[in-house]
Every structure is written in structure tokens, then in C-alpha cells.
């Protein structure tokens, strides 16, 4: 009789899943007379023990019961197998095979054997928990069978197995999140030993005794479920992922570790933790999800830039972005082409995200290394944290195909509140009269103008987005693969902007013999960007957002002849003429791939060579047509820039992993890596075209007397040696020591090599007798270490000469050369020292778990552009000076609030509070920075204050009629002018009266995820926010100090301005604002950027596909993104930063945030 069948591939698949949980597996098949082991097996050097047992069970018609983990990674040498004769002596064969592996067997009945380790205490406890949980008599069983595997197996076996089978239940198990079928789920009749596991399509077939009324479903990484049979013969189930799974394996630098053995501070994100919805890039998937990791979308443009601060900003002038390591390959994440060249666009500080070239659907997991113990292995690139991205790999057993499609629509979430045409007319007339210039608009004008033009509406659009993702994965005993194709197409909410992506991936692993394995991870992409052209540029050079916020609302869009209307009163372009008149397109091809080979020298010692290459070419084409001022002036400007950026990695590592005895185990890692980076660029521009028709397609059509060429080539090199020791004592005390010696070409002749050590201790309190049973898990962690930062660009230590200004002799232009910088041959690493203490705990069977960390991060020898007196002819010298501290607290709580067969409710909450402080700037004193054209500096670096604190004048009120203005510190003021605080009391407002106005860093950030699952429906709600940060909105300044009287203004500034009748106004009179005195950066325009955002809302329905043979799974979903933001901030987005990745934060003509609704379908075949 065949109770159930289990395909051999599936057995293997199950073996691959790392687990501390366990479940028994039963198997019985009809005996056969085939040879015991196939002859081709002899070509291999080992076979998995599971495979061997399977063969034996078929051969002898017996079943084996074992804890799944017992067999994990156990291999049998073919040499041994050859010695097993086909002589029907099963027990002798078992003895022969199991003994060298440290395993025993015991026979229960004629055809049933249990396999168990000789001495193993750890698993016993887990097994006991798993096995006994479903039972109603849990406490009783625990008392009766205290941690003896054999006894508990015996109990199970003896109670259930011999019963008659009277009912057969079939069904399908799927993931509640993705709707994908779940293979390998353990399905067990409650209170019996009768069970099975689901196949590759999630199907199961279970024969049970009649009186069994409940089935228990369990699987690693999922919440176990009990379902009442209620006389049904088909039961489909969805399983909710259990983020608390203790068995999680965490990827760390150059290796993996079980989460329970982790000594460093690492945030680990699985697919269930990722943001749902339209994610253009990998980093968007984790925005708001990890404590201590502040991810801000600095530009809301499709594919726009993001900035990440892991545990605060650790550097003033060197980079602050983390290192990205994708499948073991540290990639170059520097920004792509951003300059507008000669096409009159200037530079956008928010270039496209370089991670757009990865397909978010390919990501299996993301680990964020935060403390020095975790990051020191990355040495001079570790100071800002490290993000390890692991892509999906194939599993053994069949092929699974998955197709995901969604489409959506986006609209501007919040328009800026500008004056309408009637409000504008009233305001302009009133202020003009107050200035003594009479009225501007007559009654006839007002009648003619009517409602005027809403320029924001002119440049905004409701924009579609589409995504297709097709993937296939699978494998057999020797080969696994994962392949995917992705097409993503998103238009922007500003007309003439958007992104298209085409990405392919292939991950392949091949075993060669018993000891060797080779693999390849290959990602290739084409990204087409249609760039919005706004940046920090102003006036004539500005883009459509800037101009739409300032354009006169009384002007029509078009002249009567259909051409663009150009206000004679303004020198900025008609916003729509910029949308239609400027094209700026990027095409980026990027291929990231690495090939590795690993070889098991002995059972414990493994060597690995990894060769990687990351090559990207990008071309940006800009054409500024005659529709715009600049284009018209030049008769069309064309600009083509190309960038080739590549790097190669050669890396050799060895690991040694050994349990010396039951109390000591050790893991050693050593390695050497070399990485070489090259970047080359070319830029050409030309003007004076006979027509706009060809754009950048034929540059030689332009006037070759008006062309410009430029090129650049740079390289840099890293050579590093690394080592790590992990030592586990009594399975309670964990020690980690690591060290990396990093050499970088970027540093001064005298300081090429830096050394970055770290130590960490972990104490598994949960294993101690004195810790109450209340805790399922409790661990204390502590670490110290040093990491470095080398993100200062190339050649910073050398004196070189580059292109100087143009000079005119005899009315001809000549070129020149001037010094690029002052040399600093002593330039070296910036060193960040970090101390971390943390607790991991879980209670109530892991239903509530938490991770808490406190850290102090100190950056020394900071790479600072020390300002030089301009009288030296240089602006600064890059030097190692000063010290900065980030001190913070972060925690993560995951909770399963409710769990019933039909309904589950999970909550995840993360929180972090970080204080940044500059402790020392050496002899430098204050550094004022963050210059904006015609606004001036916006921020300051000052000892004792946070980095890049906003710096300007404090407004303490408005002058009123009757005030003694002549005797005040502002004798030139008028009633209605702002009163600036005379800080030093010298009765004059001077730069000495500037104070720190606010802090760009939040007091705390948080994210809250709630997931509800009811039968086939799931709802996910994710909120995310920050509190206490300020943000300087330069558009507020533009409005308060209009560069042209006829520009439009923010409504509140005019509607609530000071007039003799409105004396308690918030805003000054608007009469000759340039005579206000003080400065444009003042407390009136600085705003609180605290916010709470409903970032995603997702409703998913799993379509039951039990009877559809070709379908593995199907689900449909609706997702909303950025649905609501609660904030007092007046601007498009309190997260925006027009300086891109800089620590100095300002919002200036930022791209508006989009609110998105999407519907999608996901099908598994």
C-alpha cells in the first residue's frame, strides 16, 4: 500500500532549507529489485544522505523517521556506498553509512526506523517545541518527555501510525503574501504521526485515520496553522510568513551565520519585509523598514535619487552612503551623469539612482550591516554601513515559473498653494500701491484675465506605470538556476519625464563532483531615463517646476497664433515651453556579474575564488530647442555626454569551520581582495542648428565654430587583506574578531594602508538555567571596532593642473590651465569607531520578538575640506581633522497579535533616535556651507552642534507703525519689515547675528507595518515617518524675496502679510523685500519637516486554483502608495533634498511626490 509518494527531488529541496525547526518525515514505497545504488552514482564522489536513505527506503520498503536537520549537509561517500552490498542486510548498511556521520538508528516496528544524532542536545529542545506545540496536551507531553528525541519520536510513532487509513485529504498550500505555492510544507494529522510534505506545486495528499479531525501545517519561516477537517476532502491553506523564525540565516560579510549566533547589529529583511508597490530600485524596497537606517527619497522623480544614512551621518565631506554588496560583489554606487553641459540646464544634484539597474523582484533578502563588528570586514568602505543584497537562487526539484504584472496611475499628491490669478492681482496691486508705484492691473485687465492660468496644472499629468516580471527557477541535484526578465515603464507626474527599464538576470550554480561548485550571477540592464530638468538652477536656466511656481498666473499659456506666450515682465521661461522645448534623455547599459568557484579542501576547509565585473555605459542626450530662451539665443543647443564606468574584483577567501568538540566550535575566514575602478567620460556640445528637427541626432548640422569637446579618465585601486575568527563556547558564549588591512590609491603617499579591527561578544542568555522559561530566546551582544571612509574622489592628495578659465587676447579666446587643488601628501583614512550593545529577545513562542541596540559612533580624522582663506587662491585643502559623534538607540518589535486558523494579525514596529554632534573641528572653527545661488550659505559645521545645522537670522516679529525704528538695529526698516534678533547687541544686524535655526536630522524615525490575513484575503498597511527634523524650503525664500516683482508667490505669504490693517500677520509686508536687511535664510522660511505617511496599503486576494492543473498559484492585488501624509511642512515632500546625497538639506523646486494606485496579478505555473 502506498500511503503517499514523495518525489526524490523534493527531498533534496527540503534539505536545502536551513532550519532549527524540524519535523519528522515518513516515507514508504514498494520494494523493488533494482540495484541498490545506480552505477552513475559512482561518478560522483558523494551523495546526500537524504538521497541515500530514500533509495534504501524504496529498496527495502521501510520508512525512516528523522529530524530534518539531522540530515542537513550530511553526505555519504560513494566509496562507502560501494561497500554496501545488495544483500538485503539493511541494518548493516545503515550502520555502515550512518556511523561515520555521527548518527544512530533505532528500529520501532518491522518497517520503521528512526535516525538521530548520537549526542545532540540543541536540536532536541527545538524538536520538542515543534512537535509538541500543536498538541492540546502540550504541558503534559513536555513533562513526560523532557527533551529526549528518541522518546518523543517513539511516542509519536507508537500512537498514530498503525491506525487504519479511512480518509484522504488533498489540497494546496500557498504563501499568504505572494500567493505562490509552498513546497516542503509539513502536513500532519494532529495527534498522529501520519504526515506528508507538499510537492513543488504546493500540493499534498494525506491519508488519515477517521477520527483525526484537525490537520497541522508547519513550515520553516511560516506561522504554523491548525485547520479543522470538518468532513472536507480538499483543504487549501495559505501560510503566513513568520518573520520571527529563529532559524533565519543571516548573510554577513564574506559568509553567513545563523541569526541566533549573530554577534553584530544586522537588520535582515526578507521578501515579507519589503515595501510592496512600484519600486524602481532595491533601496526603495527597504525605505522605513529597518531601525537605524534612514532612507530618504531625495527626489520623487521616477527612478530619482535616494540617500541612505545608516546610523547617522558619519562624515562631513567624504561620502555618507553605504557600500552595496550584491551577491558578494561590492559595486560602484557613484552617481551617474548629472551635468546639463552647455545645453543651459546646469547641474541636477539629484541624478538617477544607480541601483535602478537591478530588478527589485530578483531580491531574496537584504542585510544591513550596522555596527563595526559587522562592517569592519569591509574596512575602508565600511564606515557608512554595508548593504548586502542577495538575489534569488534556484531550488532543486522541478521548475517553477512566475509571472507578475501590475499597472497603475500616479498623480501629484499635494500641489503647492500659490496665489490664484484673482488673489495675485489683488496682492500685486496692493503691494505696488504701497511701494508708491500705482496699480498694475486695471479693471479692464481684471475682466480680460478672468481666472488666468494655473501653471502647476499645465506641467502636471496623471501618469501611468506598468510592470511585467517573468521568472523561472528550479534545478536538479547538480544544477540550480534562477532566471528573470523585467520590463518596467513609469511616466512622471511632470510632463516629459519618466523611466523605462529592461532587466535580465541569470543565477546559475553547478556542482562539479563532490567537492567543487561553480556559479555565476549575471545581471544585465538597459535603463532609459527621460529626465526632468529641474535642479538648483534659477531664473533663465531653471526648469518647469521652478517656473511653474513663479510664473505670472495672469498670463495665458499660448499667444493667439499658437506660439508660447512669453510675459514681457518676466525673464523666466514659460513653464510649458520648457516641458516641450527641452529633451534630456539618458540611456544606461549596465552589466554586473560575478563568477565564483568554491572547493572543499577538507570537510572543514573551503576555498573560494570570486571574480566580478561591473560595467556600465551611459549616454545622455540633451537638446534645448528654440522654444526656450537659451535655445532660441543659440539656435538650438545639443549636448551629448557619455560615461563608461567599470570595475573588476578579484577575491580569494578561505573558511575553516570546525566543531572541536561539543563545547567548542570555531569558524575562521581569511582572504585577499583586489578591486580596480575605471571611469571615462566624453562630452560634446554644439549650437546654431538650422532646425530643431533632428535634436542630437546629427551634431555636424550645428555650427562647428561653436562646438566644445571634453573628456576625462580616472582610475583607483583597492588592495585588501581580511580575516575573521568566530568562536562558539558552550553554545552560550560567542566571540568574533575581525580585521581588514585596506590599501587605497586615493590616499597620500605616506598613508596608503589602513587597518580596521573589530571584536564582538555574544551571550546567549536564553541557554542559561537562571533565565526564566518566559524567554524563548534572549541574547546580549556587545561590539567594538573601527571602519574607514575613502569616498573623497580621486587625486585628492596630489597637486595637479586642470582646465582653467578662458582668456581673451586680440578678441580671440584662448584656453588656460590652473592648479586643481593644494596637495596634501599626508591624506589618509577617515576612521569611524563604533561601540554597540544590543539585546535580542523573544517570548510567547516567538510571537513577540524584539531587537534593541544602543550605539556610539565616533568619526575621527575626518576628511574635511578645510576652508582656506580665499586670498591663497584656493578654496580649501582636504585634511584629516576633527571628530564627530552619532549616538543612538534603535529597536524593532515584531508581534503576532492574533492567530486563528482563518485570521492572523501581525505587527512590526521599528524606531530609532540618533543624535549627531560635531565634537571637534580642530583649529578650523566654524565652516559655513550649503551655498544656493543668490540665497547664500544655508548651513554651518560648528563644534557642539549637529552637522549642517541651518544657519541664519532669527526673525522675532514685524515692525509696527509707531515703533522706534530709527533707534533700532535696523534704522532703514519700514513698518511691516521683519525684526531680526540682534544677537550680539551691537544695535546692528550683521553676519555676527546669525544663529543656528534648526536641525536637518530628525529626533526619531519610525515605521509601522500591520498585516491582516483572513482566509484568502490579506491586507498590509505601512506607515512611516520622522519627527523633529527641519527643512529649508528655498521656494519659500523665492516667494518672500521675489527676484522679479511680477513673479507669483505662495498664497499664505501674501494673504497673511503685514498691512496697516493686518498688524498681527505672520509674513512681512512684501514692500521692497530686498531692503528687509538680515538675510534670506531666516527663521520665517525654515520649516518643521516632521511627517507621518501612509506609504503603502495593499489588498491581496489569493485565487483558489486547486482544480486548475496548469496553475500553481494566482493572486490579484491592489496597492496604494503615498496615500496620505500628515505634516505641517509646506512643500511637495518633507523628505526632499535638492542637494541629493549631501548632508546639507534644502528643498528647491523638488519633484512633486506622486500618489499611486496600482492593480496587479501574480501567476505561478
Amino acid at each position, binding site marked *: 500500500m502506498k500511503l503517499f509518494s514523495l518525489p526524490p527531488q523534493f527531498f533534496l529541496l527540503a534539505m536545502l532549507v536551513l532550519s532549527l525547526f524540524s519535523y519528522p518525515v515518513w516515507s514508504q514505497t514498494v520494494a523493488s529489485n533494482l540495484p541498490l545504488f545506480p552505477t552513475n552514482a559512482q561518478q560522483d564522489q558523494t551523495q546526500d544522505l537524504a538521497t541515500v536513505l530514500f533509495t534504501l527506503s524504496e529498496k527495502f520498503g521501510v520508512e525512516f523517521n528523522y529530524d530534518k536537520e539531522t540530515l542537513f549537509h550530511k553526505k555519504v561517500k560513494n566509496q562507502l556506498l560501494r561497500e554496501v552490498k545488495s544483500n538485503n542486510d539493511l541494518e548493516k548498511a545503515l550502520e555502515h553509512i550512518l556511523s561515520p556521520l555521527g548518527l544512530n538508528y533505532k528500529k520501532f516496528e518491522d518497517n520503521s526506523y528512526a535516525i538521530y544524532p548520537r549526542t545532540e542536545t540543541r536540536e532536541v529542545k527545538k524538536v520538542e517545541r515543534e512537535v509538541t506545540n500543536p498538541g492540546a496536551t502540550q504541558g503534559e507531553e513536555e513533562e513526560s518527555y523532557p527533551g529526549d528525541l528518541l522518546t518523543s519520536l517513539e511516542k509519536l510513532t507508537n500512537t498514530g501510525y498503525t491506525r487504519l487509513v479511512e480518509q484522504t485529504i488533498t489540497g494546496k498550500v500557498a504563501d499568504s503574501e505572494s500567493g505562490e505555492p509552498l513546497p516542503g510544507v509539513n502536513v500532519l494529522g494532529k495527534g498522529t504521526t501520519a504526515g506528508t510534505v507538499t510537492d513543488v506545486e504546493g500540493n499534498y495528499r494525506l491519508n488519515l485515520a477517521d477520527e483525526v479531525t484537525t490537520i497541522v501545517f508547519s513550515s520553516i519561516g511560516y506561522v504554523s496553522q491548525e485547520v479543522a477537517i470538518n468532513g472536507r476532502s480538499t483543504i487549501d491553506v495559505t501560510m503566513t510568513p513568520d518573520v520571527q523564525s529563529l532559524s533565519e540565516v543571516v548573510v554577513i560579510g564574506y559568509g553567513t551565520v545563523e541569526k541566533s549566533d549573530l554577534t553584530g547589529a544586522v537588520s535582515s529583511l526578507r521578501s515579507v519585509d519589503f515595501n510592496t508597490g512600484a519600486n524602481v530600485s532595491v533601496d526603495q524596497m527597504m525605505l522605513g523598514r529597518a531601525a537605524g537606517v534612514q532612507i530618504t527619497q531625495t527626489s520623487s522623480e521616477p527612478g530619482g535619487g535616494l540617500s541612505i544614512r545608516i546610523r547617522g551621518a558619519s562624515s562631513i565631506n567624504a561620502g555618507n552612503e553605504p557600500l552595496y554588496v550584491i551577491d558578494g560583489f561590492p559595486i560602484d554606487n557613484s552617481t551617474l551623469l548629472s551635468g546639463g553641459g552647455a545645453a543651459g540646464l546646469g547641474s541636477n544634484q539629484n541624478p538617477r539612482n544607480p541601483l535602478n539597474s537591478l530588478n527589485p523582484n530578483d531580491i531574496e533578502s537584504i542585510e544591513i550591516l550596522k555596527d563595526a563588528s559587522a562592517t569592519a570586514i569591509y574596512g575602508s568602505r565600511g564606515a557608512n554601513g554595508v548593504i548586502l543584497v542577495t538575489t534569488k537562487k534556484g531550488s532543486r526539484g522541478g521548475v517553477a515559473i512566475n509571472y507578475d504584472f501590475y499597472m497603475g496611475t500616479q498623480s501629484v499628491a499635494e500641489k503647492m498653494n500659490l496665489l490664484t490669478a484673482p488673489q495675485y492681482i489683488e496682492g500685486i496691486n496692493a503691494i505696488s500701491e504701497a511701494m508708491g508705484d500705482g496699480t498694475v492691473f486695471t479693471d479692464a485687465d481684471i475682466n480680460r484675465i478672468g481666472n488666468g492660468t494655473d501653471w502647476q496644472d499645465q506641467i502636471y499629468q496623471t501618469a501611468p506605470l506598468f510592470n511585467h516580471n517573468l521568472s523561472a527557477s528550479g534545478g536538479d541535484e547538480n544544477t540550480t538556476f534562477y532566471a528573470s526578465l523585467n520590463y518596467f515603464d513609469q511616466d512622471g507626474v511632470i510632463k516629459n519625464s519618466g523611466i523605462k527599464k529592461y532587466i535580465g538576470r541569470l543565477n546559475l550554480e553547478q556542482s562539479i563532483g563532490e567537492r567543487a561548485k561553480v556559479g555565476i550571477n549575471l545581471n544585465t540592464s538597459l535603463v532609459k531615463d527621460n529626465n526632468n530638468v529641474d535642479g538648483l538652477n534659477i531664473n533663465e536656466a531653471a526648469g518647469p517646476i521652478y517656473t511653474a511656481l513663479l510664473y505670472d498666473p495672469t498670463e495665458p499659456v499660448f499667444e493667439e497664433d499658437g506660439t508660447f506666450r512669453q510675459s514681457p515682465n518676466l525673464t523666466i521661461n514659460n513653464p510649458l515651453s520648457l516641458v516641450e522645448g527641452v529633451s534630456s534623455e539618458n540611456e544606461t547599459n549596465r552589466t554586473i556579474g560575478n563568477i565564483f568557484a568554491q572547493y572543499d579542501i577538507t570537510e572543514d576547509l573551503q576555498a573560494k575564488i570570486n571574480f566580478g565585473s561591473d560595467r556600465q555605459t551611459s549616454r545622455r542626450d540633451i537638446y534645448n530647442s528654440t522654444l526656450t530662451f537659451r535655445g532660441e539665443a543659440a539656435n538650438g543647443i545639443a549636448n551629448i555626454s557619455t560615461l563608461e564606468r567599470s570595475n573588476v574584483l578579484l577575491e580569494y577567501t578561505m573558511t575553516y569551520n570546525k566543531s572541536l568538540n561539543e563545547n567548542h566550535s570555531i569558524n575562521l575566514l581569511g582572504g585577499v581582495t583586489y578591486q580596480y575602478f575605471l571611469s571615462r567620460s566624453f562630452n560634446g556640445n554644439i549650437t546654431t542648428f538650422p532646425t530643431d528637427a533632428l535634436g542630437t541626432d546629427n551634431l555636424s548640422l550645428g555650427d562647428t565654430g561653436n562646438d566644445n569637446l571634453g573628456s576625462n579618465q580616472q582610475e583607483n585601486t583597492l588592495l585588501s587583506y581580511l580575516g575573521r575568527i568566530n568562536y562558539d563556547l558552550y553554545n552560550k558564549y560567542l566571540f568574533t574578531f575581525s580585521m581588514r588591512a585596506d590599501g587605497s590609491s586615493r590616499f597620500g603617499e605616506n598613508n596608503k594602508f589602513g587597518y580596521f579591527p573589530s571584536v564582538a561578544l555574544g551571550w546567549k542568555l536564553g541557554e542559561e538555567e537562571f533565565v526564566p522559561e518566559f524567554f524563548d530566546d534572549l541574547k546580549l551582544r556587545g561590539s567594538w571596532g573601527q571602519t574607514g571612509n575613502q569616498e573623497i574622489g580621486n587625486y585628492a592628495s596630489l597637486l595637479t593642473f586642470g582646465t582653467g578659465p578662458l582668456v581673451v587676447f586680440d578678441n580671440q579666446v584662448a584656453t588656460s590651465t590652473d592648479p586643481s587643488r593644494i596637495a596634501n601628501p599626508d591624506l589618509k583614512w577617515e576612521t569611524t569607531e563604533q561601540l554597540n550593545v544590543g539585546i535580542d529577545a523573544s517570548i510567547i513562542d516567538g510571537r513577540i520578538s524584539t531587537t534593541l541596540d544602543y550605539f556610539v559612533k565616533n568619526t575621527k580624522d575626518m576628511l574635511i575640506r578645510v576652508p582656506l*582663506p580665499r586670498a591663497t587662491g584656493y578654496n580649501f585643502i582636504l585634511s584629516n581633522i576633527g571628530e564627530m559623534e552619532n549616538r543612538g538607540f534603535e529597536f524593532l518589535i515584531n508581534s503576532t497579535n492574533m492567530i486563528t486558523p482563518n485570521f492572523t494579525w501581525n505587527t512590526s514596529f521599528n524606531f530609532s533616535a540618533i543624535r549627531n554632534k560635531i565634537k571637534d573641528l580642530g583649529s578650523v572653527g566654524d565652516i559655513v556651507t550649503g551655498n544656493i545661488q543668490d540665497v547664500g550659505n544655508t548651513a554651518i559645521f560648528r563644534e557642539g552642534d549637529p552637522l549642517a545645522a541651518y544657519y541664519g537670522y532669527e526673525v522675532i516679529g514685524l515692525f509696527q507703525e509707531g515703533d522706534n525704528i530709527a533707534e533700532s538695529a535696523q534704522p532703514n526698516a519700514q513698518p511691516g519689515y521683519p525684526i531680526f534678533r540682534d544677537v550680539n547687541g551691537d544695535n546692528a544686524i550683521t553676519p555676527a547675528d546669525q544663529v543656528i535655526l534648526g536641525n536637518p536630522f530628525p529626533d526619531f524615525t519610525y515605521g509601522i507595518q500591520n498585516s491582516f490575513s483572513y482566509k484568502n484575503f490579506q491586507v498590509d498597511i505601512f506607515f512611516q515617518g520622522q519627527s523633529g527634523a527641519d527643512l529649508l524650503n528655498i521656494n519659500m525664500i523665492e516667494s518672500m524675496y521675489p527676484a522679479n516683482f511680477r513673479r507669483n508667490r505662495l498664497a499664505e505669504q501674501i494673504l497673511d502679510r503685514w498691512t496697516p490693517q493686518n498688524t498681527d500677520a505672520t509674513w512681512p509686508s512684501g514692500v521692497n523685500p530686498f531692503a528687509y536687511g538680515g538675510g534670506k535664510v531666516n527663521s520665517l522660511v525654515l520649516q518643521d519637516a516632521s511627517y507621518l505617511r501612509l506609504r503603502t496599503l495593499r489588498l491581496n486576494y489569493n485565487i483558489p486554483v486547486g482544480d486548475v492543473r496548469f496553475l500553481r498559484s494566482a493572486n490579484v492585488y491592489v496597492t496604494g502608495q503615498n496615500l496620505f501624509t500628515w505634516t505641517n511642512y509646506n512643500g511637495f515632500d518633507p523628505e526632499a533634498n535638492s542637494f541629493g546625497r549631501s548632508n546639507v538639506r534644502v528643498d528647491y523646486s523638488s519633484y512633486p511626490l506622486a500618489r499611486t494606485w496600482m492593480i496587479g496579478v501574480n501567476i505561478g505555473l
Partner: protein
Amino acid sequence: MNPYILYFILITFAASLFSCEDTLEERVFSELTPGTFLTTENGIQSLLNSAYANAHLHSFDGHVAYHYLPAMTSGEAWNRGGSIEVWFTALSDFAWDSNHRYVLGLWNDGFQAIRDANIVLDNIENENFSTEFKSLVTAEARFIRGWSYALLYNNFGPVPLYTSSGTDSLLIPRASEEQMRTFIETELTTAAANLPDKPSAFGKASKGSALGVLSKHLLNTQQWQECLNVTQQIIDLGVYGLVPEYSEVFSLENEGNIEMLWALPRTAPEATQSINALTFPTDYPLPLPSQNVFAARTYLFDDFVNSFEASDTRTELIVTEYVNKSGEPIQLLGNDQSLSLKYEFDPNATGAGMGNDIPVVRYADILLSRAEALNEVNGPTQEAIDLINQVRARANASLLSLGDFTQESIRDQIFQERRWEFYLEGKSREDQIRQGTFISGGQARGKNAQPFHVRFAIPQLDVDANPDIEQNDGY
């Protein structure tokens, strides 16, 4: 094999795969290193070009400062519109501070010219260079230092005196008055001795450039006799004279004319100045559709425009009315909104930048400076009256007679003549300071002018970065 030993062997083997430290040598591709670059004449010449560009105040902020710091502080003109207004209003109101963008622009260009000239001078002793090359380049570089320091001294008083490219002592205090003047005079005198009578190309330094700048420095520091000596040398060169028509002094086709001793050369479309763009209103009908202007406007006062004699041809370059793009007539005179068209719209220019040179020292200035010095040294003389009359005659203004003047009234006449001759040429501030009317004039216009305002504030960046530097009084 013992795994530890194997481990050791393999790791050692791996380490040897990677060649060591020389891997980390920095190879420079797209920039030049001093060792190869500054040892050739072409390299030195290229660096000297940068020194010239800075000496020509090539940057937007530099040339705007040169033009507008005097215009706005002296009450010669007034301004409306543009985001630049916040800076110009501060100048007009005597409310500028040490963070003034354009004051910094002047400081930056001046000191970068000095930086480049110092590097040139520190690398000029090279056996591969010809004697002529060394002599000429040395003279040019010293002229650039002299001109730049004279410009800085004029605006800030004594400044730190950087005379070499060494980076050992970057933070130095300001020089004394004495050191400053001596250095400027020595540099310009020495340069004049070695520079050619005519520059090898217009825009480069000549004997006349050095003597011209020197004579202005001597005049501004009221070294009258020395000024007389130098102006005489200039006249004796026989190279310079007055262009027959006033408007032709500035015309594009006449650039590098006999009147120009030293100018800030510009050419369109690549190396331009923006004065017209900061002067003309947006509705002004520009001659070419490809040209445009900024939102800022610069206006002349009616009092000034009306002060010319009717026959004076210098008013030809003042726009008092126009018909705007919409066809409406706009009256400027009468509204204090007359516009200076000293720099004609450049037909080669596109956008907002024009290629007109900005004169710094022209022969008319030498004549009037000499008249002023003569009057200070000798009192009323026919020679001084003749010098003034040369300038007036060219402008078709009535000629003066010695008998009508005292020393004092000649002085007043010269300052008045200078206002007519050099309006919006960056002369008004220094002239008023010499005349002693810079502060009182500001006060008369109702501004909060204080005696300390005769010098601009040392840029705050330098005060912050250099503990040894002392800010000017009052800031």
C-alpha cells in the same frame, strides 16, 4: 595534511597573486602634474593665461563687482529687479556686510590671478627657457600681481601679501600700508621696464598697461608728484591718444583702440560680460531675437542726465526713451530711469552675454589724472586746463579758460568732468573717495553711510579661515 598548514599555504599563495604596494600608485590621466607640465614654455604660458583670465576678472561675480560696486555705492546708478537686487540694494543702502557676494567675487578673481602669477614666477628659472621668454613672462606675471594687488588695495586697504606659491605659510596677516604700496609700486615699475611698448596681443600687458595702472594707484593714494612723473612717461611713449568720437571708444569694431591702456577684454559668445543684461528691461526691443536680458535693471538719475551740456556727445550713449516690444512708448528720462548704452549690443552675442571690452585705464583718464595731480601740486595751470579741454573737445563740450578757475574750482571741475567722461566705468567710488564726497554723498542721499564704508569688508570666509587676519573697522 593538517588543515591549518594547508590554510596557511593557500592564503600565502593567494597573497602572492596580488602584486603589492605599487598597485596603489595613483596614475593621473586627465590632469597635468607639475613635474612635466611646468618645465615647458607652453606649460608656463598656459598657466599665465589663467593668470590673465583672472586679472581680466573673467568670472561673472568678478566683473559685476568691478562695474557695480562703484556704481551702486557712489549713487551713480540705481537698480531694480532680479535676485541680484538683494546684493545691489545692500550696496546702495550702505548696508553691505562681510558676506557680500560681489565683494567676494572681486577678492576671488584678484587673488587667483596672484596665485597663478606666483606659480609662474616660482617656476620661471629653467634652463630650457629662452632669455626673452623668461624676461617677458616675468614682466607679465609681475604686472598681473601689481594690478591685482592695486585693485584689492583700492577696495579693501592692505591685504595679505602672497608673493610665492609655497604652501607652508598659507595663513598670513595683512600687510602694512607701507608694505602694500611699496609692493604694488615696485611690481608695476619693474614690469613697465621690461614690458613692450605695444602688447603682443590686445589683452596682454604692455608698458602702458603697467604705467597706466601705476598712475591710477598713485593718484588714488594722492602721490601727486609721482603721478605726474608716470603720466608724463605714458604721454612720452607716443603710443596712446584720444579716439576722435566718444562713442567709438567703446564700439566693438574699435576694440583695442589707441585710448586703451588696460581693459578687461571680452568676446562673444564664449567669454562675455553681462552689463547690458543687468541694465535693460525685459520689454526692451533687443536687436537680435537670440539675445535676452536678466530681470535686473540699472538706471541713471535724471539729475545726472540733465547735467550735460546740450552739445555734449557723451549723452549719445544714454537711452532716455524707447518703444517696447509691445509697441508702447516708454519714457525713461523724467522717471530717473535712463539707461546707459555705452556697450552696444554685440551682433555676435547670443543670450545675455556680450563681447564688449570693459575699459579700465584709458588715455582720457591719464589726461584728467594728470590735470588733477598738476592742480594739486601747482595750483591752476594752463597745462591742467589744456588737459581737461582735450577731453572736452572730443566730446564737443565747450572749452574751459584758466581765468575762470581757482585751484578748488578746478578740482571740482575735474571731478565733474570725470563723472561725465567715465559714467558707469567703475571710477565713481574712488573718485568720490579722493574728493571726500563718498560718505557725505551717501548720507545726503539718506543712506546710513559711515566713514568706515570707504573700505569693503574682508570676506567673512577669509576672516573665518585665517585667525591672523584683521577685519576692517566697522564690520
